[in-house]
């Protein structure tokens, strides 16, 4: 059976997603995404919400926040803090692995 070859869009740092695209990909209202921007969790380019441009990693962050809110009942400020701490732990683990290898 021949299956059609699908080519997708790679959501890297350079790609730009709209407010609507981020909202749908998180199964959330646009208002929720706007709250994330107000909280400083997402930093889109552009001034007005209608012109906002989100990078690929914004979607990763938004989805983690969505899960934390739904599964653990964490509020936005708490979720923002968790994100920052996770980022920090990730960097430290990577550093630790490197140091362990070099010694």
């Amino acid at each position: 059976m021949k299956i059609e070859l699908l080519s997708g869009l790679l959501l890297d740092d350079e790609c730009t997603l709209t407010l609507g695209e981020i909202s749908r990909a998180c199964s959330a209202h646009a208002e929720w995404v706007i709250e994330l921007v107000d909280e400083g969790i997402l930093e889109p380019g552009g001034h007005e919400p209608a012109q906002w441009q989100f990078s690929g990693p914004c979607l990763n962050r938004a989805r983690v926040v969505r899960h934390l809110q739904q599964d653990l009942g964490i509020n936005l400020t708490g979720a923002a803090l968790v994100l920052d701490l996770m980022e920090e732990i990730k960097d430290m683990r990577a550093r630790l692995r490197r140091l362990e290898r070099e010694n």
Partner: protein
Amino acid sequence: MEFKDYYEIIGVKRDAAQNDIKRAYRKLARKYHPDVSKESNAEEKFKELGEAYEVLKDPEKRVAYDQLGADYKAGQNFNPPPDWNTGFEFNGGGYTETNAAAFSDFFESLFGHDNKGAGSRQSHGREPQYHAPGEDHHAKILIELDDAFNGATRTITLQAPEINAQGHMLTRKRTLNVNIPKGVKQGQFIRLAGQGSPGSGKGKSGNLYLEINFKPHSFYHVEGKDIYLDLPVAPWEAALGTTVKTPTPEGTVDLKIPAGSTSGRKMRLKGRGIPAKVPGDLYVVLQLVLPPADTLQAEEFYRKMEQELAFKPRAGLGV
């Protein structure tokens, strides 16, 4: 079907108060949340926890579950007695936060499933009065590091729970042939337009987001767009300097080892990491390896070094 001991999963006694159940669940949910946890089985544990809590947090379901009897042990073969839940009334309270489609057969045989269940998590954000595009879907896929360097075509099989016309939960499988673009990084998404749920009315189909994960490689280690490689070198190579063959994801290269290199020395091959506009780097970390003294000849050699080299490895320690 195996009996599941929901009390054991949450780690509480059968007579635990609702508050204790809630506290125990919250604690474990934080520990095993797949976005946060480093436990290898986090996703599975988290689902199991959600299922157990779904039953125990709801006094109606809990009472019904309790009267199955404490005689069952986790893992024991289980068939629900035909009249097990007569006289119990379930209102549609469940599945608010959790994805019921992910619950086990055991759960389903006891509590069935809510038709709204599978979609409820996604349905909060719909705005059907304006338009009704299909829902976006998400899936994780595993690729080889090589695929990120050269690009690749991968055939993936995805499974999705689906409720048929009779209200039964089925697993629908589909196979997709996907182009993996050169330069993908761990955790990035590839968006396949129109591969999500079909829209209703004139609404467009949703998208499918594939999250890229690399399979662990036997000698490369990926960090962001950089790659790390431990390169074993012999003592004479490190001491005298030489040129050695080194693997890189794009093929073997000759690497110059400077004289007097020590174990752990890090050498950067600029631009040999994951391809991008600004490509990542490949870091080669030297690992000094000693030849074993497992032949008479090798042993003699080590003796000779001992006698002829004025080498004091612990000089810095004052001993």
